[in-house]
């Protein structure tokens, strides 16, 4: 079994901590083979969740879902964090070749180019209250379950937004 944790002088007179990937000797592995290196910047998730959508109405009826100025309370922070948003839905049972009614994310939303306004997700951070205010709009394309409401998922990272 190889050594995987190194605490102390990790090389070049630098003191810190390194943890290698399974099967890799922490003393000889290169940077890409490390799970953790105290010399390297990293990112962590400080909060995640999902927001239920409502019917957007309009010309596309119930096939378009939205989030309108929903507030998310974040933990107290002294800066605006980096945030990622996208939609979560389920596969359409009528589509062949993929699991029926399985949960899936929509990384770039519906892709339907002719709708107006176009699909989007956006947010703003309110420093005074440490809240995110989220807006979003997305059409259900053929690949998602027309009977599933859809959610907006969010990830809040430890990095500063700028």
């Amino acid at each position, binding site marked *: 079994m190889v050594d995987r944790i190194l605490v102390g002088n990790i090389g070049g007179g630098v003191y810190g901590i390194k943890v290698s990937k399974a099967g890799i000797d922490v003393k000889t592995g290169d940077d890409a083979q490390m799970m953790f290196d105290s010399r*390297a910047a990293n990112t*962590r998730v400080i909060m995640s969740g999902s927001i239920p959508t409502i019917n957007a109405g309009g010309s596309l009826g119930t096939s378009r879902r939205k989030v309108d100025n929903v507030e998310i309370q974040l933990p107290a922070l002294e800066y605006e964090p980096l945030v990622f948003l996208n939609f979560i839905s389920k596969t*359409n049972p009528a*589509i062949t070749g993929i699991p029926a009614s399985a949960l899936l994310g929509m990384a770039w939303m519906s892709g339907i180019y002719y709708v107006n306004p176009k699909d989007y997700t956006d947010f703003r951070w309110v420093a005074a209250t440490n809240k995110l205010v989220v807006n979003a709009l997305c059409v259900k394309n053929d690949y998602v379950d027309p009977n599933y409401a859809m959610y907006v998922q969010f990830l809040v990272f430890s990095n500063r937004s700028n």
Partner: protein
Amino acid sequence: MAPRVLIEAGKVRVSKPGVDVTATSLLRPDELLLSEGTQSLGILMTGQATATRYAEDGNPSYNGAQIMLPYDLGYVPFVLSQRVFLADEAINTPAFSEINRIDVATADYGYYLYPMTDRLLYFKWGGTTTDDVVFRYVVYYVKGG
């Protein structure tokens, strides 16, 4: 030299180089490499694959790419993906792009990513005249929400 590792009741922290870990606060999580109550962005899987041409036959069918995860996570993971532009494509140099849909000489190139609990699902946008799309992906352990 500033102390950088702190382990005590309710706290496990490693600060960035030059930052005194005893002076850190969760109000400033970017000062920390590791801290209690936060999840590191560990990588589950990376790779490169191809989404084949989508034959729009008018029926709701799938013709793209499916990349199976090592196991069913039970939740939808966070995934980053970029299209790989090859040397002979529009911009004449290998590159990566976050753009998921472009028009090149009236041909329509595009792809869409659907991360699932046990696989990545890609499909292309466009008709039979468009080419396959090559993309790379990074799947993180992080639950999307």
